């Protein structure tokens, strides 16, 4: 059986090559931008990888906080992300629970219909949406951005949570029903605690989508009142003389919140995201 153990060793070596190459490819770019955010313009433009110690600086962060409107944009992003997350969670939790536990004529068609909205081109939807937002006088309003972003979030979130609820044993509901609870009580006190990991992933999904959204914000936002971090990042890196140190600092500050949230839900992420697809038997 020597050939077998040799094959195992070969596999291990090959797997290490894949893992190390992946680490470099997927992680190095993020570290590189973080590194750049601490360098001076001169140091970056020297074209060298390392610079003398005196050329590392916090100036880029100081500048974007004191000179630019970045703090305002950052706050806008948090505000919009939080409202989108809360609102979409309430709607998708009760909707997904209803779809998962109760009969409804044409339910399968409705579920496929909800999923199939994923194929609607967003660039097409935003044309009438823009006109609706203008008519409601919500242009350049936080509420307008929130309503637009719900389109991006809701269908997938409902589909995902419905799959998650489907995998929870119906005995839970039945036992509680016998105890005389109504639907909302069962959802709140029986299902929600058990489904917390799935709901955390759903919350994470909607926040990250809202935080990273450029499309909706770019047409509804007209001023710094509603502009978000993705907008300022695009503007900074499109300017004539690019201050790469400052752009890098903005990128880091935009990335960090998503990475922090990711580290919380990380272990549950894939299980939650693909719950709509996988049926546990």
């Amino acid at each position, binding site marked *: 059986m020597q050939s077998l153990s040799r094959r195992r060793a070969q596999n*291990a070596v*090959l797997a290490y090559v*894949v*893992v190390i190459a*992946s680490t470099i490819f*997927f992680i190095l*770019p*993020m570290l*590189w*931008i973080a590194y750049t955010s601490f360098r001076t313009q001169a140091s970056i433009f020297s*074209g060298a*990888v390392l610079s003398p110690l005196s050329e590392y600086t916090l100036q880029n962060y100081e500048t974007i906080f004191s000179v630019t409107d970045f703090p305002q944009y950052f706050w806008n992003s948090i505000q919009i992300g939080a409202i989108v997350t809360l609102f979409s969670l309430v*709607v998708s939790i009760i*909707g997904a629970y*209803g779809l998962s536990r*109760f*009969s*409804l004529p044409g339910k399968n068609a409705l579920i496929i219909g*909800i999923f199939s909205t*994923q*194929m*609607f*081109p*967003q*660039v*097409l*939807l*935003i*044309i*009438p*949406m823009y006109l*609706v937002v203008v008519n409601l006088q919500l242009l350049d309003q936080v509420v307008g951005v929130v*309503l637009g972003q719900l389109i991006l979030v809701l*269908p997938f979130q*409902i589909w995902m949570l419905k799959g998650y609820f489907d995998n929870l044993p119906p005995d839970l509901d039945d036992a509680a*029903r016998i105890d005389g609870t*109504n*639907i909302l009580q069962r959802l709140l006190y029986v299902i929600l605690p058990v489904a917390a990991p799935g709901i955390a992933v759903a919350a994470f999904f909607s926040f*990250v989508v809202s935080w*990273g959204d*450029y*499309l909706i914000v*770019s047409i509804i936002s007209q001023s710094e009142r509603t502009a978000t*971090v*993705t907008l300022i990042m*695009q503007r900074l*890196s499109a300017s004539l003389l690019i201050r790469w140190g400052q*752009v890098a600092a903005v*990128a880091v500050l*935009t*990335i960090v919140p*998503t990475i922090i949230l*990711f580290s919380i839900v*990380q272990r549950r992420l*894939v299980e939650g*995201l*693909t719950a*709509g*697809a*996988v049926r546990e038997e």
Partner: protein
Amino acid sequence: MNVSESKAVARRARWLPTLKEDQQGRLLILPAVIIMAIFTVYPLLAGLWTALTDQNLLRNEVNFVGLANFQRMVADPVFWQTLEHSIVLTTVVVALQVVLGLILAWAMQQNLPGIGLFKSFVMASWVIPVAATVTIFKFMAQPDIGFINILLKAIGLGSFNRYWFGDLTFALPFIMLLHLWRNVPFYGIAFLAAMNAIPKNYYEAAEIDGAGAWARFRHITLPGIRSMMVVMVTIHVLWTFNNFDFVWLATGGGPVNTTEVLPTYVYRQSWSNYDLGYAASMGTVMLVILMIYFIIYLRITERQAA
């Protein structure tokens, strides 16, 4: 609790039990259905209608023009170019993601020391905003000061020094690279989850029967992760084909339309030329293409379920 609230609760308490459970369940679905109707179904129908008009944000009057926008589209060489880019980009990106995702999943399954740590951070590229991803890679692709060109110079390929997103040949492959960078780890982790659910004794039995590595992959692994694969591919075909951010933020469709895809072309017609009618007609074509794809997907999953 104030007076009106307690009244509301009392009212609800009175009528709730009079509805059957199933009817109450339907009420729960109502908010989602209403919101989706207002914000996806209505915009879709209105968008399809706009495609038959000459609506322009610079004019107040809107005329029904029938299929004129579609006639204009057929004669528009840029439209055909962007259609080709969209289809090539989606096909190449999703195919490579599946292959690379499988390789990554295989490597993670080998139980190497430290693999747990690797699994915990490898999906980071998927969670950061696309705008940040684009910024990172735009900086790395800068001539002279970008990491890619520094690296090329270090290994003696300094003659390749260029802004990669501004290159007629390499801009589109670089857009594809961005898609891979973002999504391959998601595929890897998802495939790994599906692989781990395959009973180990299948493999042991196959090995006793003398099945080689390829045969085991073909007859055990592939069927085991098939449903996960179908879902991942379906979602990503829709998401990649509809993706606007990568191209718009990285190149804006340039240089000279070499990276222009349907979503960015529709966006440009809508919000740079204000030509909503023409934009909507191309959006309609995007929808039709995805519908054809989606019908094929439903056929496949139905056959699977049967």
